[in-house]
């Protein structure tokens, strides 16, 4: 991280900002290519060979092949792009959201039906409260 942002204090959140935009470009452009059916087929036929077409880092490549959804975000992935890999796998946004938050599909669906994840205790890392001026 090149400088501090007030949003860095939000837990479990990967803001797709300038720094992630800088490191994630190739990864997200690979995902973008999956908008074309012929590319989806090529990717499904041979994932490793298809990924060779894009200048990914070793970590980006690993996270895609292993479907490490959080790993992709940490390596500069943007959820609107990486979700296209999930669509190839026949997964939904809710399936992937459950995996990222580390609970079963059923537990996640139940949480959403009960009104979703509460902001209480989820606003700041370590539960710490931030400066009041931030909200001004």
């Amino acid at each position, binding site marked *: 991280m090149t400088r501090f942002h007030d949003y860095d204090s*939000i837990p479990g959140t990967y803001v*797709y900002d300038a720094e992630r935009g800088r490191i994630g470009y190739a990864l997200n452009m690979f995902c*973008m290519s999956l908008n074309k059916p012929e590319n989806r087929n090529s990717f499904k036929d041979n994932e490793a060979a298809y990924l060779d077409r894009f200048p990914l880092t070793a970590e980006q490549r690993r996270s895609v092949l292993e479907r490490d959804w959080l790993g992709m975000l940490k390596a500069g992935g*943007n959820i609107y792009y990486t979700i296209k890999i999930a669509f190839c796998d026949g997964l939904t946004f809710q399936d992937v959201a459950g995996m990222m938050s580390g609970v079963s599909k059923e537990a996640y669906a139940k949480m959403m039906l009960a009104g979703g994840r509460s*902001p209480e205790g*989820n606003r700041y890392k370590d539960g710490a409260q931030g400066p009041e001026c*931030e909200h001004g």
Partner: protein
Amino acid sequence: MARIVAGIACSHVPAIGVAMDKGLTGTPYWEPLFKGYEPAREWLRKLAPDVAIVVYNDHASAFSLEIIPTFLIGVAEEFPIADEGFGPRPVPAVRGHSQLAWHLAESLILDEFDMTIANQMPVDHGLTVPLSVTCGRPPAWPFAVIPLCVNVVQYPPPTGARCFKLGQAIRRAVAQFDQDLRIVIYGTGGMSHQLQGERAGLINRQFDTAFLDGLTRDPLALTRITHTEYMREAGSEGIEMVMWHVMRGALEERVAEVYRHYHVPASNTAAGLMILENRSAE
């Protein structure tokens, strides 16, 4: 003279489109959400506008990260339906209003809003889901549509205050258009939701309710919500609510809330729908 008669705020969850396309709207999961859409459809059918300006964001469909326009207006006669990674939605292509769109582009740029102009682009669920929500499944959309895209995918999106001012500029531009058109403006996206990270699934009913109340009562106060506050309080993707300010800015200062529907969950999202009419509307 052209004039904006009403505004519609509407979430654009992709799963809502899927539920309609697959005929699942009567299932126990979806029924309460869709039931709440019926009065809005009836209202819009009676209003029968000529044109809708739909403020939405593209989700890696028409635009990639190659070029990221902050504000963009679509001036084409027709916009095809995008393949977002699972085939295009089975909905009609969107008919544009090229003349009005070009007039808006020209007026907005001269009014110091530096719009990107798109002559060709597919439209994704960000635009088509609000149309489906408010029009159902017609064989053709009942009005012309001018797509107006706002970047909310690459941080930072434009501020809420800037979006509100763009709305005001749209209102000024529309008033200068020499055709007798009745226009509705959609602000789409939101409400609270987070699709990514360990905190995925965040919903903040209190924030959303205050936001809905504020749209009528004190929209300027809402424009001072910072990006970090949206993300912290309403989830990282809740920041889409900046687009509602464009819609609100395009309406008169005094508006009446005609209808409100709020439901949790639509997949990962708090789905909101609100109709605002200008006080001077017929």
